[in-house]
């Protein structure tokens, strides 16, 4: 087992009952990172984050520093924090929002300083009522303390931060849909190009959109230096990362682990982490990075939690959520439920996603209930091919955003890994797991 003794970068305060309060935050080095950042130039702050090679923790894994440097030159730029955590089985930002809201705010002000943002918005998923309350409360305190607002901590830097509640739509996690929603519209992803909000973002102005966990790393990086962060992990997977483990494990939870050092086996079976599979059952498969990711089998369990390694093996670390399926889990039913999710959450702009998602869901549901036909297995793959031509990884896109091209992952995984199981459903006219 190789669970390293890496420092807790974003979860250092989680153990305290009062981790969300300003008192606890200040007693544990809170706002020191911001103080240091304000003594540097914005360029120096950005350079430090570049040195850290901090990868975005939202799902796409795009380097945060690069995102900042892509900003179009303009009088007004905005910073938007993506706290619309809705990828099924992902619950890490939920923890950070409720348990350490000041850390997030500190990170937001550091980032706003680095990009000289006119204003910052923290978009929080509407379902997270307590998270919205905690961050709003913390923001009130931070204004009063002087860490947000006018002449921050005695410097000449000023910026306002606004908490914006979402209203329940997975698609708003897509950054252009999030911006539309923030503008008070339906959460329709914008047509690309322009590909990046850094060129055309909120109200048409250049905008940086970063994830909650990404922001929460900034205070530590500024305090300890980008090099100290980059010294953790392997290759381009630097620092630590939150992994949300769920499904058929004994100890589902969020764990902060050093990147690329721990394996999926450690995460699932180590006593200090997942503590093995429920009822001592055997591992059947696992989803390595959110339900948009293709599945892995037990033979891949020794792979490291490394963005590059997982990417090369044909899947992704994505949002950092690992779902464990055991021998009692029906692969078809799992694929059906994931497909049902995408179908329900499709914004409806693009035909392949809106219609294809529904067809796939119906076929899978019929098959799961023993009314499928053998040739429909190929039909499923054919529809998937219309959503993501070639059904390869990373997926090809036929839709405005990647929601559509994410649908085939679970279906293709179930068919490629468990075709025999699907055939039993068809031939015996029932689900063998019922």
């Amino acid at each position, binding site marked *: 087992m190789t669970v390293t003794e890496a420092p807790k970068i974003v979860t250092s305060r989680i153990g305290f009952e009062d981790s969300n309060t300003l008192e606890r935050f200040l007693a544990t080095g809170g706002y020191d990172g911001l103080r240091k950042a304000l003594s540097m130039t914005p360029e120096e702050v950005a350079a430090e984050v570049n040195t850290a090679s901090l990868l975005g923790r939202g799902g796409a894994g795009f380097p945060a520093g690069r995102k900042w440097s892509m900003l179009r030159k303009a009088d007004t730029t905005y910073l938007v924090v993506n706290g619309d955590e809705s990828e099924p089985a992902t619950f890490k930002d939920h923890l950070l929002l409720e348990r350490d809201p000041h850390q997030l705010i500190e990170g937001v002000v550091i980032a706003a300083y680095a990009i000289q943002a006119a204003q910052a918005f923290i978009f929080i998923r*509407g379902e997270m009522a307590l998270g919205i309350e905690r961050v709003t409360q913390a923001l009130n305190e931070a204004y009063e303390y002087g860490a947000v607002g006018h*002449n921050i901590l*005695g410097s000449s830097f000023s910026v306002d931060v606004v908490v914006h509640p979402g209203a329940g739509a997975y698609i708003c996690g897509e950054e252009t849909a999030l911006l539309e929603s923030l503008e008070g519209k*339906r959460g329709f992803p914008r047509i690309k190009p322009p590909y990046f909000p850094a060129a055309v973002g909120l109200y048409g102005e250049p905008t940086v959109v970063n994830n909650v966990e990404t922001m929460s790393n900034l205070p530590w990086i500024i305090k300890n230096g980008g090099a100290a962060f980059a010294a953790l992990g392997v290759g381009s997977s630097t620092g630590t990362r939150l992994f949300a483990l769920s499904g058929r494990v004994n100890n589902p939870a969020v764990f902060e682990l050093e990147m690329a050092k721990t394996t999926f086996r450690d995460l699932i079976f180590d006593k200090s982490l997942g503590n093995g599979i429920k009822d001592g059952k055997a591992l059947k498969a696992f989803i390595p990075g959110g339900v948009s990711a293709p599945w892995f089998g037990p033979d891949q369990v020794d792979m490291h939690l490394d963005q590059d390694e997982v990417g090369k093996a044909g899947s992704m670390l994505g949002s950092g959520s690992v779902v464990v399926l055991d021998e009692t889990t029906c692969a078809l039913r799992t694929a059906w439920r994931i497909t049902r999710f995408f179908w329900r959450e499709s914004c409806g702009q693009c035909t392949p996603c809106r219609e294809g998602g529904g067809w796939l869901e119906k076929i899978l549901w019929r098959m799961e209930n023993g009314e499928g036909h053998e040739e429909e297995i190929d039909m499923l793959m054919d529809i998937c091919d219309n959503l993501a031509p070639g059904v390869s990884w990373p997926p090809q896109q036929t839709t405005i955003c990647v929601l559509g091209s994410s649908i085939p992952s679970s279906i293709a995984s179930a068919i490629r890994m468990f075709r025999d199981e699907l055939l039993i459903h068809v031939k015996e006219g029932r689900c063998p797991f019922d």
Partner: protein
Amino acid sequence: MSHLSEDIVSRAHDLVALYPEPRSALIPICHLAQGQDGWLRPEAIEEIADIVGVTPAEVLGTASFYDLLHTEPVGKYVISLCTNVACMLSGAYELLEHGEKTLNIRAGSTTPDGMFTLEEAECIADCDHAPCLQVNGRYFGKLSNGDFDVLLEDLRNGNLDDVVPPHGTLCRIRRTVGLEAENGKATQARPTEEPTPQPQPDTLAPGQTQRRRRGRK
């Protein structure tokens, strides 16, 4: 006389003042209106439209996109039971079935007494407590059928009034400050002295926010 209470209208204007463009406050104000009525009544929609400067159709068109904004009446307590993959693997569908039987309604509908709406929800990001649900946005997890029954009883008897407020994500905490950065424009930091905590110049009473409009037209 307006349909939305004076307090909500005042809070709505405070929200508008936080954004470069008024329409950005549309969804937050819808949350406020639901805090009053439980759902978005047509008269509330008209007033929201006035406040943010769009047509009522645009408010409804936006609101109808979002799961948490109700364009039809819902029960006093909306129970959103997650059945997504992590919860499904922990027996969420069995729990949903139990809920339907107990409440004698199908998921997606409301009990005749207007007390409970039961919904099949997508992942609510609390998977370490699967199977889990939310009641008006508040989490309850690791629920057995028996726990579910106890929860219903507690809600009925008002035992959870402190934990589960009425509708409205924004009903319990409000922002106490308006915008402070001049013209909303960031300025380069040049600390001239040892940074010390700045006392808030003027802490405002709830609902009484500085109206400082941004420079952008």
